[in-house]
């Protein structure tokens, strides 16, 4: 096959080509193509109303203006959060009631077949409640947030965000398109890792990969929303409360962005030294999305995504947690051994052993951190019923929670190690154990340091 003869011909051709080639050939080729495209277009296309072609330009003068560019960005973020939080409450409790009602029948069924207590525990109190929790707490905010996000995305607003922010990214040695992969991170960090492929320079891409985790994904949103509504908006009338909750969540997200900048900067000064490489960004024309089609598709996609995760991860994790909480060694459960081991360290960070254990057990998916935490707190080892939000607050407060605990749990959730799927994707994309480890260790250390400082400062000043 690959005969000598062929190889000789090959060399001959290459040599001939090299001798014929000239430096500015590429310029000529491309210029030629452009000119011929243009001439074909001139013969086939007419522009009736040239002023209409300038609409995008006019809009950009607002969306990326010196004065309004940043305020509009912040306002959009705020509005999206506000609507998500205000809108999710009612469907959440509706779903919770629904699951609760069905649990009654499940219980009856298990009594009727004379199922042993442990089976009832594993299936209903562990598996069923775990899934129910995730679904009723996760689904509504996601089903509201993502359609809004999809509308902005399909309208063409995201590249403008990247355009506005590029200067800042450049200053920290990162790529302007990192803003796009960060935006994807709001949906799912694991998917966002794949989207960093749009960044061609390996150095800047690695920065984008390592920092993507500081954008809260859909598994962490609900934790942020729930905790800030329970602990930060206390004693406020409803609308005001929603407003404060949204403001706190937004503050946390902005803090995540600040950390992203800082870490990007630090990385490009140390592990990933280098100067920013080339950059071109296309700003596509604004296009009004098909409203209902976009909303329905995003809602459906996200709901299916959450449901799938709930069944695949939350269900077995709920079961495992139940088992760990109910198998006794001596008079202490396995779960309690772990909790007690982490407790001193947790306290130091303004958290506790349960919380750290929950984050650890939640490695496969951030969605299950909160349910596992609640399960741990309940002496029976089963997850609580979800109907009443205030009941959840009681459980927290009974275990010594203050607003500091809530704040630090939010911060830890924002900053800690990426979920298992994300790490797997990081490994697949970087082919490197070292960088995957960095992606784990770096955020975790930051989470520890930040919560430690916050806890010490707050306690030092005697604010709690």
């Amino acid at each position, binding site marked *: 096959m690959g005969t000598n003869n062929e190889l000789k011909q090959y060399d001959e051709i290459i040599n001939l080509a090299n001798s014929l080639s000239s430096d500015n050939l*590429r*310029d000529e080729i*491309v*210029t030629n193509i*452009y*000119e011929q495209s243009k001439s074909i277009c001139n013969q086939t296309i007419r522009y009736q109303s*040239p*002023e209409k072609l300038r609409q*995008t*330009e006019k809009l*950009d*003068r607002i969306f*990326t*203006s*010196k004065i309004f*560019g*940043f305020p509009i960005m912040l306002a959009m973020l705020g509005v999206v959060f506000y609507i998500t939080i205000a809108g999710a409450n009612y469907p959440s409790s509706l779903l919770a009631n629904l699951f609760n009602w069905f649990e009654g029948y499940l219980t009856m069924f298990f009594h009727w077949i004379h199922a042993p207590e442990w089976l009832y525990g594993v299936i209903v109190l562990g598996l069923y409640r775990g899934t129910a929790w995730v679904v009723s707490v996760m689904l509504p905010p996601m089903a509201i947030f993502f359609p809004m996000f999809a509308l902005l995305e399909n309208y063409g607003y995201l590249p403008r965000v990247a*355009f*506005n922010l*590029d*200067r*800042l990214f*450049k200053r920290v040695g990162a790529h*302007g398109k990192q803003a796009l992969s960060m935006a994807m991170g709001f949906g799912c960090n694991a998917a966002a890792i794949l989207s960093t492929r749009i960044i061609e320079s390996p150095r800047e891409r690695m920065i984008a990969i390592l920092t993507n985790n500081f954008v809260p994904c859909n598994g962490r949103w609900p934790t942020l929303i729930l905790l800030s509504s329970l602990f930060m908006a206390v004693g406020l009338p409803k609308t005001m409360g929603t407003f404060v909750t949204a403001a706190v969540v937004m503050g946390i997200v902005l803090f995540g962005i600040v950390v992203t900048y800082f870490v990007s900067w630090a990385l490009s000064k140390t592990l990933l030294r280098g100067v*920013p490489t*080339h*950059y*071109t*960004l*296309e*700003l*596509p*024309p604004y296009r009004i999305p098909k409203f209902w089609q976009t909303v329905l598709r995003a809602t459906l996609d996200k709901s299916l995504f959450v449901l799938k995760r709930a069944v695949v991860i939350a269900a077995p994790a709920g079961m495992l947690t139940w088992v760990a909480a109910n198998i006794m060694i001596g008079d202490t459960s396995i779960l309690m051994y772990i909790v007690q081991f982490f407790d001193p360290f947790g306290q130091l960070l303004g958290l506790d052993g349960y919380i750290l254990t929950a984050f650890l057990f939640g490695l496969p998916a951030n969605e299950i951190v909160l349910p596992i935490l609640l399960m741990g707190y309940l002496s029976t080892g089963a997850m609580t019923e979800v109907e009443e939000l205030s009941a959840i607050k009681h459980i927290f407060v009974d275990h010594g929670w203050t607003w500091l605990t809530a704040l630090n749990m939010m911060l830890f959730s924002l900053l800690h190690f990426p979920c298992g799927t994300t790490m797997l994707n990081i490994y697949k994309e970087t082919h490197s154990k070292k960088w995957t480890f960095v992606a784990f260790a770096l955020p975790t250390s930051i989470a520890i340091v930040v919560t430690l400082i916050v806890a010490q400062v707050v306690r030092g000043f005697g604010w709690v």
Partner: protein
Amino acid sequence: MCNNNLISLDQAEIGDCIKIKRLEVTGTMRRRLLDLGFVPSAKVVAVQKSPLGDPIAYEVSQTIIALRKEESSKIFGEVVKNESKTDD
């Protein structure tokens, strides 16, 4: 308004139309810019500065492309009359 002095793209005022004369970029970036339509004799309009002044968006071959100063300062051309703009 016709002047024969070449300016780089980043020196153009917003609204200026520039006919490209040469690119002083090499390697991949040169190819990328060519592909995007920054070819000699093409006309480019500076359309929008980002809030912090850099990058700047240019209209080239019917598309809006943002370039950082690092690149736009290496593309040279002369200011020509903007045909695509209706006077207002």
